[in-house]
């Protein structure tokens, strides 16, 4: 038996030969009884490997797995919704910031008229007002963000 051909036999049984190797092997097996016998043994072994006794996943395991995945999908959907809502709220808040500048400017102008003197650096007052608003919103977001997972764990 040629050593090179004998090395092809297990791979042939595993269906892992290149087309040209398959042709070459078939030609050799047609003329060599010893290799044909060896090839049959490897084929039996390969068939046996495809029919080994093995458990299937139990119904309980499959059900548990589906539940776990569905819970994860629900979490993912909630996270996506939260991100979208947060994006919308931030965009809305900035729109209000821009629009409120005109209101602020109008009120400051009216107040200056009433008092008969300027009320100070309007832009600086407005900047402080906006910064205080965002700082408060940021602190509230952090507090709520910390509390939500804790509530989730104890639920």
């Amino acid at each position, binding site marked *: 038996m040629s050593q090179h051909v004998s*090395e092809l036999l*297990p*791979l042939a*049984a*595993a*269906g*892992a030969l290149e087309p040209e190797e398959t042709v070459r092997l078939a030609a050799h097996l047609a003329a060599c009884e010893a290799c044909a016998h060896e090839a049959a*043994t*490897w084929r*039996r*072994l*390969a068939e*046996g*490997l*495809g*029919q*080994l*006794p*093995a*458990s*299937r*996943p139990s119904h309980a*395991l*499959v059900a*548990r*797995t*589906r539940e*776990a*995945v*569905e819970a*994860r*999908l629900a979490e*993912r*959907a909630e996270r996506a919704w939260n991100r979208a809502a947060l994006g919308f709220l931030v965009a809305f808040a900035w729109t209000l910031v821009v629009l409120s500048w005109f209101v602020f400017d109008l009120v400051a102008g009216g107040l200056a008229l009433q008092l008969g003197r300027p009320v100070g650096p309007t832009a600086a007052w407005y900047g402080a007002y906006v910064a205080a608003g965002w700082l408060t919103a940021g602190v509230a977001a952090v507090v709520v963000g910390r509390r939500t997972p804790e509530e989730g764990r104890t639920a």
Partner: protein
Amino acid sequence: MDPDREDAFRLRRGDASGLAGLMQRHQDRLFRYLLRLLGDEAMAEDVFQQAWVQVAERISRYDPGRPFAPWLFTVARNLALDQLRRQRPQSLEETDEPAAPPRDDPHARAVAGQRSSRLAAAVAGLAALDREGLSLRFEGELELPQLAATLGVPLPTAKARLYRALARLRERLLARSPAEEWR
């Protein structure tokens, strides 16, 4: 359209029915592979569940232009190898003596002959990497290119691993029962 691809799209949209279809088609061979690789039913169950959860989480990374099975097996393989390394820091190339055949259910026991049980015992005694190559090819029914993709190695390396695993298996069978049909 390929049903796996269709279900993967559903799962990507967050539709759990996509998961049901994928599980129905792949759960049996995935579980057999994990059982064969890990050699322990409780561990296989644990990794099986983790693998599907990870599939749902990472489905956006799956390339629908490629077959689903190798991607699934790669996800499961990474989890299983982590588990094996934690459990047994020794090399995955070492044989698992004493070899214990995986537990099988009563139905499987009834239909499996003695020859099959001896073969299962011989497989269980092989090194983890040899077991996995054989299981992916013969139980997972992955073609050689898919097997190589799952193992993350070039095609010739996958071929060499398969050859080595088969040769070692036959050696074991001959050593244990020389008068048998493996000669």
